[in-house]
């Protein structure tokens, strides 16, 4: 692993994300408060630029106590959505909800002294 300095913390607004190419390895870096999440920018579906698309909350179906549908609504969890085909991954776990084999490759990310670093393989 090599520790790579990516940039000043100020360049990562809370709730936003950046995608960087480090010598050919593309990484999406997502900031949520003090927490950072980073994944390789490659979708396990067809290799799409998964981190370069939209972030939207997971859609859930609102069921009543009688199991009747009361319609759709957004849940609390955020999803990273691949812009090629719409494949979704939980922002905090990198996992696809319906197909366990689909999972984003996590990249270690940390903040030290106001600077964001990635641990890049190799």
């Amino acid at each position, binding site marked *: 692993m090599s520790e790579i300095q*990516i940039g000043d913390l100020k360049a990562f607004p809370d709730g936003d994300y*950046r995608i960087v*190419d480090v010598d050919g390895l593309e990484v999406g870096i997502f900031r949520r408060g003090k927490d950072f999440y980073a994944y390789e920018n490659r979708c396990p579906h067809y*290799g*799409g*630029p998964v981190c370069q698309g939209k972030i*939207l909350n997971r859609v859930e179906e609102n069921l009543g106590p009688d199991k009747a549908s009361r319609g759709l609504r957004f849940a609390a969890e955020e999803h990273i959505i691949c812009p*090629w*085909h719409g494949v979704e991954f939980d922002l905090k776990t990198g996992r696809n909800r319906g197909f366990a084999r689909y999972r984003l490759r996590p990249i270690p990310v940390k903040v030290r002294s106001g600077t964001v670093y990635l641990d890049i393989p190799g």
Partner: protein
Amino acid sequence: MPDASGRGAKNGTRKLRDLPKLDRLSDTRDVLAHAAKDARRLKDYIIIDVDAHVTELAFWAEINELIDSDVYRHIAHEMRQRPGTPALMNLQTGLTYQGLAGRIPHDDGPRETVTEKGVHPQVVITRRAMDSMGIDYMVVFPTPMLQLGMHPQPDVEIELSHAYNRWMTEKILPQDKRMKALVYLPFCDAGECERAVKEFGNKPGVIGFTVCSTRYKPVHHNSYMRLYSMIQEMGKPLAFHAGYHWGDPAMMQINRFIGMHALSFVQFNMLHVTNWVLNGMPERFPKLNTMWVESGLAWVTFLMQRLDSEYLMRSSEAPLLKRLPSDYIRDMYFTTQPLETSNLKLTEATFDAVNANTQLLYSSDWPHWDFNPPNSIADLPFLSEQSKRNILGLNAARLFKMEVPKKKLAQPPMNGAAG
């Protein structure tokens, strides 16, 4: 050290570069930058994409102005004065769902910037896609016009299809020899189809004919026999491009686009293949090659087995057949997209059943939401090297009588829109 954006900066010996967020305005080359990386891996494969799409509504005024009828040309002109109205079109519920509520922005395009002068913007955008995916030739179909078979006014399909064929053969195909097209046949009227064959069938870049098959017209009707003879004589294939119709009474029971889309394409392909085979069209026109477009492949093996089972008991109802229905289906051509791969054993069995090595043709369906890049075929673990080459391009070259270039024509950009 990188600056705040990190753009192009160096960190020690590492080179850092920010990548763009992708949205509706993004350049095709940025959207497909990952495909370009994969394309460089396939640099010695000749790739022919037999089903991609233009976005004709973006150039709708141009096409409308090519309408023959002065009355319909006037109607189209006036309809365009109403903001947001695609003149004369029967746009149905479904098309606006394709972009998945903004999740798949390229499906809502094209809205990217085109600054190139002297080249039609559609050609520029298609070139970007071809080069990014390493596609040497791309066969383009329309997009919303695929649903014109459900238009209540046959006159409108005839006028719009003629204008589209003129637009394609006069304004698009002459600008890039890597773009190919099939003549749109207004299948609502057999005579008009024959006129289209005569007028456009031998134009440069035209490599066959297509029926936009989302419609309730039996393909075996006697009125089409002269049309099929003409096409057979020309030696070019006849494609049936499926689509969906959420207004179909059966489909109206489905409340989500995903379910309707999964079934409706297949419904039309199954209907038409069934009629084509059981009415003995392959026996009547043995040299007419047919290509069945855009429904994936899983449905084909279902239909082969189902028709064979019933034929063995009721052959008197299909008296023109001399072989099993599946034997005729195995001689047809099919396109790959949208490829089903969640169970690769089934995918492999399907490829075997349809004689993929000689009959299957790679298709991307770009720029639609469920497109398949060439690695959808190149990365299949069960295919031989030769089968990959056949499916990705050589089968199409044989079917469409296209010369196989000695070296690749596509040049994938190294760095998205930046070049």
